[in-house]
């Protein structure tokens, strides 16, 4: 029987994601085994920690190839989304290269013409997400411009695959989709009702 697999590569905490899946009454398996990941019917790729260390673990376990080769829906969360890109400036890390572009550190200086504010890095808290693809299956029944919970210092640029934009002194990719690869910079598992809905939407794909 094919399962939903939550990738656990030992470095990140997958507990919050699993709690959210439990609240949705979903059946899933936690695994870091590329054989199990390639057999999954859906894959959730959470990420907490540093880009370089995480990619090293993924490569060591052969998970990088396994993820790249997936044809089933894949959901990268936070660092999990960032690693779908070509590269991250964090530790000058080569990513999985599924999405084009380079993940960059936030510019701490917010300029709004005459007013210059120093933004706190990491960005921690609830921020507004403007959806950029009304047909995205992930946002079904979620109002546009809802707030989601973010914790991050690096952000992905906007690109043609961006499906949601958030603003922190600059616009950045908050949601993305290319083919079967989905990603959110925010943590749906910590984003209250709208986050639960979004995870539920992914499970319903």
């Amino acid at each position, binding site marked *: 029987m*094919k399962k939903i697999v939550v990738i656990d590569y030992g470095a990140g905490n997958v507990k919050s994601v699993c709690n959210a899946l439990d609240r949705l009454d979903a059946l899933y398996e936690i695994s870091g085994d590329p054989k199990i990941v390639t057999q999954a019917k859906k894959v959730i790729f959470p990420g907490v920690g540093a880009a370089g260390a995480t990619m090293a673990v993924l490569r060591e376990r052969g998970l990088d190839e396994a993820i790249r080769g997936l044809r089933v829906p894949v959901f990268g969360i936070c660092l999990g989304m960032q690693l779908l890109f070509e590269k991250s400036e964090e530790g000058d890390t080569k990513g999985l290269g599924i999405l084009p572009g380079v993940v960059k550190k936030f510019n701490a200086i917010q300029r709004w013409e005459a007013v210059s504010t120093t933004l706190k890095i990491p960005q921690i*808290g609830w*921020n507004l997400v403007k959806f950029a693809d009304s047909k995205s299956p992930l946002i079904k029944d979620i109002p546009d*411009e809802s707030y989601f*919970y973010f914790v991050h210092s690096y952000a992905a640029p906007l690109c043609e695959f961006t499906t949601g934009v958030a*603003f*922190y002194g600059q616009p950045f990719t908050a949601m993305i989709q290319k083919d079967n690869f989905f990603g959110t910079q925010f943590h749906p598992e910590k984003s209250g009702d709208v986050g639960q809905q979004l995870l539920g939407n992914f499970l319903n794909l």
Partner: protein
Amino acid sequence: MKKTIFIPAIDLIGGRCVRLTQGAYDACTSYDSSPIQMARLFERMGYEWLHIIDLEGARAGELKNLKIIREIVAQTSLKVQVGGGIRSLSAIKELLNSGVARVLIGSLAVKEPDVVAQAIQQFGTERIAVAMDVRGGEVCISGWEEKTGLAPEIFVEKMKTLGVTVILCTDIESDGMMKGPNVELYARLVREFPGIKWIAAGGVSFRDRERLQQVGVDFAVMGKAFYEGNFLAKRVIPCLDIKEGRVVKGASFTNLKDAGDPVKLAAFYDREGADELVFLDITATSDKRKMVADLAQRVSKAISIPFTIGGGISTVEDVKNALQAGADKVSIESAAVLNPGLVSEAAALCGSQAVVISVSPRRAKSGWEIFIKGGRENTGRDLVEFLREMQERGAGEILLNSVDEDGQGNGYDLEMLKAARDVLTIPLIASSGAGELEHFYDGIAQGGADAVLAASVFHYGKFSVQEVKNYLSTKGVCMRNFSPALYKKGVPLPPRSS
């Protein structure tokens, strides 16, 4: 009520998307600087219109970016309005014949009103809008150095005689400030000239939708909010004091009263729209660590918003214990004073975002001194100096209590908050003393707090979290919008694997 149509903006120079910052032009780095890609993104966002200003054209007095404007018109389904450098009937014709939906006329409306009247006759009144800048209650026309000396109402009357029915009004003083648009000005104009279609510009962001809609503005141009905006919300945090697995709270740390089951209360606050929760476990028994883990585990299963656990955290093992059990952050208080190395160690190991430092100062002869052990022991440490050290050691956030104000309901110690704000670059949570709705606002607006925490007012039902958030929202504070509707409906359960 009619809907206000929001219009995103692009400024062009040399065929590239730019932004004007303090009088200097910067390439806008948002989307590979390509105006077409930017326009496509706006189209995907569901916008109908696009506002394009040819900045180069405005300076030169003639159209300079026609080629790229034509491309945008051809390659997207957006209705495009263009301003900047439109100084003749032929320029108006050229743009409108290129498929531009509407042109924005500035100085021409004053210098050659006949041309405007002619254009309106030729292309219809919907396709010609006059752009009026208002500064200090006077109309200034873009491109003009001096003010016209005209009150907006007089200017609008003049425009009406030419047949103008669409006017873009930019409040110069709101533009570039993060205070939102001058809604009062638009309210006045809409009331006085209901026959005019109003386009509001200057300081507009997503958060102004409701207010502009109420006023009855037809369109709103949003520019800087896209390129330089920040919509990180301020947070409202109920705090739950836990003893032996039960919620307690009393005035000035004594006279504790029982107020319920922590998990049930947490789920209740989550549904009410709390942005985050803080649990302070004041259990003092030997099985404390197990109780904290149990609490974290049960709470993390029940709610889907972040939460912090604190109270007696004194070793790295305590920190890991709480985080591994499901807490998002731990709050360290006494141990941060007695063993500051713990803060560095915890931040290095678990990340700054997981480390909150809780401080309980009391007013001293000069400044504030830090007390520990539930406000009973004075450490003699100066607050400001201590905060500096905590920040350097990697603290992710400061939770600032006040022994003097706790449980008094007289408001946060604003002076102390300001002093803390001045030395911190990490988020600051105001705590102790909130008793009225205004206190929450003062903590944010005057104290500079990023989050406001309270206990008794929530537990004993003086206000609901939602009431506080609504109040702050009407005062212009950025709050997470919350959709109880989704809760009512419930999240549909995904199909079980078969």
